[in-house]
């Protein structure tokens, strides 16, 4: 029997986050146990210390050195979340997944060793309130911050692996405990005995919103729309993981949207903060969620093409972008939405894909950050093609943000420049605002003509 991928995502809405003795949910309040999380994180000897803190919207708190943000998820009784990291290869994208709606596990740390050159972990700041809060989507969720200290004896890349796994494990643990603590309710098939955590967990709590991701039916009267999803795979400190592996030698390939939503893509990008797509943004990819909402209504969501950006040569960029356009044609696409991660170089791969899709008769819309220069009078795109006649702006990289003095700082007393006190006040370039110009559309900013 044919079994298309069908995913149910059940959202546990959280409006308040507290630290406490055990991890659980009560009403719309999530309590997280710092002790539990710290014990779990410190099982990995590569991390010397961790401080667990809560940072909620509206609080006078600043988080610095942000590396990744992860939405807590669990799939009760049926397989891996974040396969390739937590557990081995296991195709995700079907069954039931619980998500903690409005919560992220945000890992913050310096690295043990120095960096040189382009590919280094750069400053990434989130203000939870005040005038700079608008610059990060993570200021609008409740963050369980893991402020980690590295074991000084290990290499940067090894430590990167440690903090990534720490964030994923903590996220999984929080969701697992939260689901266990949900009140039980009768299922459609009959009453269920309370007391068994796993059975309670697999039992949908009646009040929870469930979003179904099922694209198996398509309407021949509607246009087919594909999503071209360019990932950053530039090297150490600038990698994205697909089922636990880097994507360096990836030719554009197909991935089911449910896999993306269900944790197949994990971020390891620590370069310029403004353009980072954290794991949280992959899990909640706004394009995929919006395509899902319109599937069967005004379009058929015909597939997701992932691609590695930042190819090193023109020939590689041509090969990759033409390949992506060919996949779109194989999917019988009428239209495509294109996004990328990172600026500069990766914009070329993105725009070439746009060009070859348009040349194949596939109508495109590109999301892009812009850089019109400090005075705003410059041409806003690093690279474009004449075919890119429908571009949505997600903000300007050339802003400078005035950061007021913060009441409390999580993550370290000084910014990564080693000088500026994290508490402020200081002026900070948009480059260092965490997800300030999120090219998946996760933020609320747009570049506008004034």
């Amino acid at each position: 029997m044919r079994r298309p991928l069908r995913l149910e995502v059940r959202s546990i809405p959280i409006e308040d986050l507290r630290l406490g003795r055990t991890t659980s949910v009560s009403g719309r309040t999530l309590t997280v146990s710092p002790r539990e999380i710290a014990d779990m994180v410190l099982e990995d000897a590569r991390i010397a210390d961790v401080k667990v803190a809560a940072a909620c919207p509206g609080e006078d708190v600043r988080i610095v050195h942000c590396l990744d943000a992860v939405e807590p998820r669990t799939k009760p009784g049926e397989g891996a979340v974040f396969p390739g990291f937590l557990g081995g290869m296991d195709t995700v994208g079907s069954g039931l997944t619980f998500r903690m709606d409005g919560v992220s596990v945000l890992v913050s740390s310096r690295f043990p060793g120095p960096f040189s050159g382009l590919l280094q972990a750069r400053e990434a700041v989130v203000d939870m309130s005040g005038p700079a809060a608008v610059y990060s989507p993570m200021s609008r969720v409740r963050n369980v911050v893991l402020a980690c200290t590295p074991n000084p004896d290990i290499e940067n890349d090894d430590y990167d692996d440690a903090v990534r796994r720490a964030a994923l494990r903590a996220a999984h643990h929080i969701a697992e405990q939260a689901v266990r603590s949900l009140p039980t309710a009768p299922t459609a098939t009959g009453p269920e005995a309370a007391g068994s955590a796993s059975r309670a967990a697999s039992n949908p709590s009646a009040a929870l919103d469930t979003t179904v991701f099922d694209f198996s039916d398509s309407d021949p009267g509607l246009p087919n729309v594909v999503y071209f999803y360019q990932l950053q795979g530039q090297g150490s400190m600038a990698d994205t993981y697909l089922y636990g592996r880097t994507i360096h030698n990836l030719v554009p390939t197909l991935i089911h949207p449910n896999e993306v939503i269900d944790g197949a893509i994990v971020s390891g990008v620590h370069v310029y903060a403004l353009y980072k797509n954290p794991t949280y943004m992959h899990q909640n990819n706004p394009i995929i969620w919006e395509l899902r909402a319109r599937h069967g209504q005004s379009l058929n969501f015909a597939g997701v093409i992932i691609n590695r950006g930042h190819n090193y040569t023109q020939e590689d960029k041509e090969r990759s972008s033409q390949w992506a356009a060919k996949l779109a044609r194989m999917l019988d696409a009428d239209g495509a939405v294109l996004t990328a991660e990172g600026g500069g170089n990766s914009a070329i791969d993105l725009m070439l894909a746009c060009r070859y899709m348009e040349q194949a008769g596939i109508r495109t819309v590109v999301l892009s950050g812009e850089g019109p220069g400090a005075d705003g009078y410059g041409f806003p795109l690093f690279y474009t093609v004449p075919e890119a006649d429908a571009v949505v702006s997600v903000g300007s990289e050339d802003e400078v943000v005035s950061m007021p003095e913060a009441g409390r700082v999580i993550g370290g007393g000084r910014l990564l420049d080693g000088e500026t006190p994290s508490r402020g006040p200081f002026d900070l370039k948009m480059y260092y605002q965490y997800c300030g110009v999120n090219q998946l559309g996760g933020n609320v900013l747009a570049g506008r003509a004034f």
Partner: protein
Amino acid sequence: MIRVVHYLNQFFGGIGGEDKAGAPLQVHRGAVGSGRALAALLEGEAEIVRTLVCGDNAFHADPEGNLDAALAAVAEAGADLVLAGPAFNAGRYGLACGAVGAGAGERLGIPAVTGLYTEAPAVDVYRSRVVMAAAADSAAGMRPALEGMVRIGLRLARGGGLLPAEEDGRIPMGYRAGWAVRTPAAVRALDMLAAKLSGEPYTSEIGLPARAEPAPPAPAVADLSGAVVAAVTEGGLVPEGNPDRIESSGATRWARYPVSMFEEGGGPAFRSVHAGYDTRWVDADPNRLVPIDALRSLEKEGVIGELHDHVYVTTGTGTAVTEAERMGGEMARRLLADGVQAVIATST
């Protein structure tokens, strides 16, 4: 109460038509002519303390003198805001409004707003220097034009800023900046795609570039074996310590370094400060960015006449086009002055 100075031409100032276009600049107390409608809109918020009226021909007969006199009157009036026009699609009147508005802002630091039709001649001249409320092409659109000028002007006079041109009902000044929006990008993108797929009109949020005027190709080097050849790079290669403080991105500075610094040991090591590429290979061997060794051996072989004694450096990432053009021009003039006949440039 916000103190407003209003600028009008002879027609809207009630002096007369084209036959009175030579009327010299007059300073009135209070509102005059079409300014009475403006005063009504400002009621309770602001007061027109002076009205300047000048004939269209008279203003342009002595633009500097009239501007000086107008600004003196604005200063003397203790104005918080200058409103000029609206001038709709008028040529001379619009240009006078632009001049007075730009002068108030630039010389006196007083906010100013005019009202113009988008294709009025003054728009191209003063677009970036004066705030322009969008107006119709004739005085039939007087009331909405005045309302726009008042809405924007009062906000500026109170220390507020501009909204994006579209929300503000303004003619764009030519610059872009970030702005918090309500509709998520994913929704805007799919709405745009839906319009594009169904053949309905849509507007790209970032238009295509006006095709830059291409530089005509320079003539070929006639005799390579006698030519002075210089190396230029945007790869950010600088001596240790970056003495010229060339920026890692968004460069506004360039420098030149003696080739001898690269070739002779003992001096400071060269490293790239460029923030747009992985510099470890170039740091290990700068020839991978600036091919001094190759040019020197080509010089020895007689393929080129001479390797120019300086290497020209800047950083080409996030660099504004205007800055890049300025620096490129400066480099080019220096290269010309030094008799360089061909350039080998590298870019990362």
